[in-house]
């Protein structure tokens, strides 16, 4: 008798437990679905402009003047790309851009890593004070030193050349990058230096044989950030490059966009062509981002968290 009541209560209890668990699971699943719904909705909003960029670049000219516009091109006009490229000096300006990118990469990777090395592990009197100076220059707006720099470069006869854009990177490579590399170098154990010194390695030997090989991920991060920055830069090229043969990709679009040759005179380029060029100049940093996400994330985290 007693045993049966006990059995029923335990059965009831387990039933109740099951129900509760089912309820919890349902709550769990509703909240999970809501969460995924929100994440998806957000992604749709943030990816839509990119979809629009590509979609517009493939539309025939008639679609551009539809209102309200259709989401997909009525016909996929792949020929928009060669058509836009026939008037846009992609090769010349792309080459100019790459020249600047490579120049700045070399200058920055050498000089910023040297400075970061000195700041992170060579004992120099007043090192901390100098490093504070580096950090304080990060807050300085570019525009406050711009005019004297412009005058210096003018007096050197460097206007309308790539030198004002490249040469400064050989002299420090920018406070942000010194800081980023220093933060990374600090994580390399000191014991390596000591061991290398015992083996007869000097200060420069340690830099070249120990630090640089171990810091490859950080150097890759600097290289990627530099690429993105120089590829996107607009202001400095605008100030220093005057003639079309010197222009960078970013700079050339403005003039090109306003001047489609059309029989009698000039008229603005149609938006499908502008979007085609915009897609092309986006493609390069985008691909680079997809293939190097790891370094990207690391760079952002190293520079940010410890700031």
């Amino acid at each position: 008798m007693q045993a049966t009541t006990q059995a029923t209560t335990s059965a009831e209890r387990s039933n109740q437990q099951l129900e509760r668990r089912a309820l919890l699971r349902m709550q769990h699943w509703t909240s999970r679905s809501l969460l995924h719904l929100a994440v998806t909705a957000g992604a749709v909003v943030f990816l839509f402009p990119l979809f629009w960029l590509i979609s517009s670049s493939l539309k025939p000219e008639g679609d551009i003047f539809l209102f309200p516009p259709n989401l997909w091109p009525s016909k996929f006009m792949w020929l928009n790309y060669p058509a836009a490229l026939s008037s846009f000096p992609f090769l010349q300006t792309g080459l100019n851009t790459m020249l600047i990118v490579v120049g700045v990469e070399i200058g920055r990777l050498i000089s910023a890593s040297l400075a970061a090395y000195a700041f992170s592990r060579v004992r120099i009197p007043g090192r901390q004070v100098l490093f504070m100076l580096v950090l304080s220059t990060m807050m300085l707006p570019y525009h406050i030193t711009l005019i004297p720099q412009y005058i210096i470069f003018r007096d050197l006869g460097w206007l309308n050349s790539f030198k004002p854009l490249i040469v400064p990177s050989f002299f420090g490579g920018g406070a942000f990058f010194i800081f980023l590399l220093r933060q990374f170098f600090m994580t390399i154990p000191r014991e390596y230096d000591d061991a290398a010194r015992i083996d007869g390695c000097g200060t420069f030997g340690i830099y070249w044989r120990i630090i640089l090989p171990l810091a490859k991920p950080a150097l890759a991060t600097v290289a990627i950030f530099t690429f993105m920055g120089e590829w996107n830069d607009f202001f400095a090229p605008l100030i220093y490059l005057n003639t079309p043969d010197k222009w960078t990709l970013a700079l050339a679009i403005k003039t090109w966009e306003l001047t489609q040759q059309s029989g009698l005179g000039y008229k603005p380029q149609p938006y499908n062509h502008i979007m085609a060029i915009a897609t092309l100049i986006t493609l390069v940093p985008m691909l680079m981002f997809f293939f190097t996400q790891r370094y990207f994330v690391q760079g952002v985290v190293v520079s940010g968290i410890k700031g």
Partner: protein
Amino acid sequence: MSTLQAAPLAVRERSWWQSPQSRKEALEGLVCLLPWIIGFLAFTAGPLIYSGYLSFTDYPILQEPTWVGLKNFQSMFSDDLFWKSLRVTALYTLVAVPGGVIIGYSMALLLNQQIFGLSFWRTAYYVPAVVPAVATAYLWAWMFNPDFGVINGFLLRLGVEPPKWFGSEEWVLPAFIIMSLWGAGGGLVLYLAALQGVPTSLYDAAKVDGANAWHRLRHVTLPITSPVILFTFLTGLIGSFQVFTAGFLITNGGPNNASLFYVLYLYRVGWRYFKMGYASALGWVLFAIIMVLTLITLRASGRLVYYESSEEKE
């Protein structure tokens, strides 16, 4: 660093300098620093002093600068365009920077849940920040096109009277702000890293104390991640006061200077009117504004920002 530790260290280091080996190391270190030192003197310190001097001169680039005392700063007071550019930039900053931080942080909070396919979503939210500024400018000029743009197409379907966006004095700044918020995912990686660094033990402790999700966000997550929020807020602030490219390309400051961002005005004064003295003065005022805003933010955030160890507080 505590002073107790620093003192014996300093003594040891000073004696350390006196050995020839250490002097050699210091010398070699200075050689490593030499490029930066030259760069600092030639491209930062020197120009800083020179632009300070230029801000007290009239300098129509082709002639020599002539000393005019405080004239540039005085004429700023009566320069309507200066005030307008300041107002435009401040208004833009006031909405775009906090808005960007809030959106970026909310994205990170969403993605910090147990989400299927995290790296895909992270990329989706982050990717607008990778699009070059020039492409972003033309893309949004096209999307906000009053006559054929997709945004007004949506608004029309919703039955809303569509504004002229970049073509209207009222709507040009909201358009620029919306455009800048598109890049809010730029802070996502940082926020996510910070969120993942919050010790789970704190959440467990909060749960034991009966804290609900909101309490946990308010009293655990936000305080622990506050240094990162401060960092993105400050860098956003500094960047926002220097915004140029989109304004230059899309509206060139118009209509009726309603989007005359500060640096756009500086560029115009320097490279269109060739008033380099006045442009230098504008540069110094920009620097002063950024400094003051940074100090105010740091002061105001003192109580709000939480640092785990006292060492980081410095």
